[in-house]
């Protein structure tokens, strides 16, 4: 199958991340159209009509989010781009920021115009030096050419954009933790409500959008809602960039219409490698895994729920047949217990105990009750008992592997060892 390049359309374009090639390929036309031909409400209406949904994981309507910004608030409003991509297996936002930074700036200024904001912030993950530098240079070019700053394109609209860096914390990909971090604090999530649309950055109305959502919104403004709806389904319209990695021959990012089957994406990624597929996580490691015979599942919000998982960050990780599931899940559990910020007890304690029990099972020190104990602790920490979704993310791989691969767990306990002899126990 062919890809449908919408947000990735400048991939491969020579110097596509600089202003000249960007403008030559239609860049900043959406911004010009919004500022000169549309009212802020028109912009919100077209984005809402397109059905574009947030690509960060929760899948909330992008236009709806913009609409929820209170129009009568005396406070300043803010636009924040979540460029803190850290979900294991996800690498599309990074490519989008590196290859098309101006499209992100354009989408953000359009959003600022729509909601009446004068300040935008890009929260770029700290480790992404390359993306940071591309964004920094693009922002400079945009200021120099009046796409940012005072009286943009000769209109009365003015807007500033600040590029901000994270410093190494997975939790800051969660929107309220991100806002805490952007305010100069430890990145710990806040209770909701109030939601960021009413009390976000500096307790003011704030839109927090993912990189891909903002870039897609720009294209929607330029080409219209119906154009965007030519792809995908009624409830999950448009195109989606999917990362595919793990046991595939040609890992990478692939843009396809929503509701494309996983099998087509695996084909785009050169097929599963010689090791064969045991299981896959469809939306990054934090989404419940599905067994290898479920590649008929489709990459859309509803399709993935129907298949027993979630679309999440649309990032497929293929687990090979020769990989011990317990070991893979244990590896993931170390990540979650390290990244849990410690604010909420179910997550702080749950991720710790899940890691301990998984270690016992994998290293042959488990007792007969440990697999059931693992299930109970996992259920105990999940079910939205914490301020953010990190505990749910941690519970996803554990719970789903217990459903699909319970026999592997039991085999470990029965043998008192990992049955995958070839696999060394990591330090």
């Amino acid at each position: 199958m062919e890809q449908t390049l919408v947000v990735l359309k400048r991939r491969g374009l020579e110097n596509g991340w600089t202003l000249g090639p960007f403008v030559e390929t239609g860049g900043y036309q959406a911004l010009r159209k919004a500022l000169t031909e549309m009212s802020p409400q028109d912009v919100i209406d077209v984005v809402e009509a397109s059905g574009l949904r947030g690509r960060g994981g929760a899948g909330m309507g992008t236009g709806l989010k913009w609409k929820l910004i209170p129009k009568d608030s005396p406070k300043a409003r803010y636009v924040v781009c979540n460029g803190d991509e850290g979900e294991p297996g996800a690498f599309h936002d990074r490519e989008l920021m590196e290859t098309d930074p101006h499209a992100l700036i354009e989408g953000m200024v359009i959003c600022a115009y729509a909601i009446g904001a004068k300040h935008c912030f890009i929260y770029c993950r700290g480790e992404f030096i390359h993306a940071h530098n591309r964004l920094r240079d693009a922002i400079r070019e945009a200021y120099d050419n009046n796409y940012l700053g005072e009286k943009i394109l000769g209109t009365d609209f003015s807007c500033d954009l600040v590029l901000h860096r994270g410093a190494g914390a997975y939790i800051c990909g969660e929107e309220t933790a991100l806002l805490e971090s952007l305010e100069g604090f430890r990145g710990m999530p806040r209770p909701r409500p109030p939601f960021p649309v009413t009390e976000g950055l500096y307790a003011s109305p704030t839109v927090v959008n993912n990189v891909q959502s903002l870039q897609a919104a720009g294209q929607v403004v330029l080409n219209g809602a119906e154009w965007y709806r030519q792809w995908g389904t009624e409830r999950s319209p448009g195109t989606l960039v999917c990362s595919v990695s793990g046991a595939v021959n040609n890992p990478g990012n692939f843009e396809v219409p929503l509701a494309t089957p996983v099998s087509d994406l695996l084909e785009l990624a050169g097929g599963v490698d010689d090791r064969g597929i045991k299981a896959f996580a469809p939306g990054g490691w934090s989404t419940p895994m599905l067994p290898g015979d479920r590649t008929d599942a489709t990459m859309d919000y509803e399709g993935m729920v129907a298949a027993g998982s979630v679309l999440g960050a649309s990032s497929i990780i293929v687990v090979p047949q020769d990989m011990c599931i317990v070991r893979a899940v244990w590896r993931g559990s170390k990540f979650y217990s390290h990244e849990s910020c410690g604010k909420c007890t179910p997550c702080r304690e749950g991720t710790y105990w899940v890691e301990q029990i998984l270690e016992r099972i994998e290293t042959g020190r488990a007792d007969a009750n440990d697999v059931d104990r693992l299930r109970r602790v996992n259920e105990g920490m999940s079910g939205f008992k914490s301020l953010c979704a990190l505990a749910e993310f941690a519970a996803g791989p554990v719970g789903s592997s217990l459903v699909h691969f319970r026999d592997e767990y039991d085999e470990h306990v029965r043998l008192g060892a990992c049955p995958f002899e070839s696999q060394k126990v990591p330090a």
Partner: protein
Amino acid sequence: MTVLNDAFRANAREVMARYPQPRSALLMVLHAAQEELGYVSDDVVREVAEIFDLKAADVEGVVTFYTMYKHKHPGKFLISVCRNLSCMINGADETIAAMQETLGDPNQTTDDGLCSWETVECLATCHWAVAAQVNYLDVPYLTPDRAKKLVDDLRAGRTLDEVLTELRAAKSLQEAGSAAAQRSGGV
């Protein structure tokens, strides 16, 4: 005697002015201090707190939350190796073992002050598994052999630029000759 000079402080105030509330610049100013001095020392914490008119403990709390801020001086080259799922599936454990063999324990610095290494979580370059960075510059396909060669080359005094250009010439894991690729081939 201060560790952050007047030029640094002037620049810090400029960064603070970009934000509606100056404290928002804290992470950026800490990054700048680390770039200048190599790590975030107790002196840096105290002086940054002074610049922001915060308690040192408040700044220390922020510093310790984020893994990129280092509390001791890492080597001239900080090698970060991803150990998360996509990389694990493609041989991260073998690469990490090779690093351990070559440079000893992680989060230490070699006696000559040249190299430090650490394991990190998903670097969002899973298509390059095993993903790594040297001083936050990306390295694709870090197989055990390539990891050893990387360290040898840096020890031999080759420039980082030169070494990275060479490592980036490989266009696939197979080309980089990984253990995982050999396993796939039935070896």
